[in-house]
């Protein structure tokens, strides 16, 4: 680099004094041998710890991936059987689904007491209007 391009060479003397003052006073205390050894040891411990953590994370990830693969391999889609979904064992339920198919007589799906009333009404209706029968 051209010395004239260096901003440090272009600093006026009064600013140079300020920079020198800051450079001299704004530094950490020199590291003692004990602190250096402590720094080295802590860094070494953290590197070992990180390597162990990475190994453990890798192991757990691999186990989780294997479990997921096993789950996918053993999974079978559940088929929904439309005919089995609605049981025809209960006549009443089937009657509610399609009463006309259950019985030729549309009144059969009604409870007995209602059926008596319905029959009576039908009879009355038939008596008053014979053409409908």
């Amino acid at each position, binding site marked *: 680099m051209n010395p004239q391009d260096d901003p440090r060479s272009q600093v006026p003397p*009064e600013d140079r*004094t300020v920079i020198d003052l800051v450079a001299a*006073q*704004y*530094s*950490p205390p*020199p*590291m003692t041998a004990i602190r250096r050894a402590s720094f080295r040891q802590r860094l070494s411990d953290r590197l070992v710890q990180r390597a162990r953590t990475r190994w453990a994370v890798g192991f757990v990830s691999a186990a989780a991936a294997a479990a997921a693969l096993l789950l996918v391999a053993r999974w079978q889609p559940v088929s929904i059987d439309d005919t089995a979904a609605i049981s025809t064992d209960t006549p009443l339920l089937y009657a509610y689904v399609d009463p006309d198919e259950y019985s030729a007589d549309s009144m059969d799906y009604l409870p007995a007491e209602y059926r008596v009333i319905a029959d009576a009404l039908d009879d009355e209706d038939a008596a008053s209007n014979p053409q409908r029968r």
Partner: protein
Amino acid sequence: MASVADDIRTDLQLQSQTRDFEAFVEARRDAAVRLAYRLLGGDAATAEDVAQNAFLRAHRALPRFRGDAALSTWFHRILVGEVRRHQRWQALRRLWYSDAEVAETADPTPQSDPVLRRRIAEAMQRLTAAQREAFVLVHLEGFTIEQAAAILGKATGTVKSHMHRALESLRNQLGDVAAARSE
């Protein structure tokens, strides 16, 4: 057997890498701690922690180092990144805790005047983070403007501008002390 030979070779490579990294740390430790100290505002213990984090990050990233930047620039970029991360974390902590709980410790410095050091530290703290970074890298650590721009990820013009403003601020705050000491 090939597998045993491979194992031995891998082991030797790892040992060599470990030795290289130890040498790398040994060569840059003091400068890294000093730079972190100056950027963080005068806390030696925190500066050591931040420098350690930077070395750890460098260790992780070393296999991906492509060599398209100088190793020094590359490492200092990591270090400045760690300093910024720490400062963001400190700012967050200040939001949650009172200032007293996050009070930064002043280091005992038997070799100099504690009042003067405190005054200089306060003057440095009054600079913006960008001004402090530019001033420290160029004027205190001796990087060129181009190197500082590469480390900070900024244009050279921006770095010059920050340096100029930093120097102006420090001159206003410390000019009297500097003049008295130069007499």
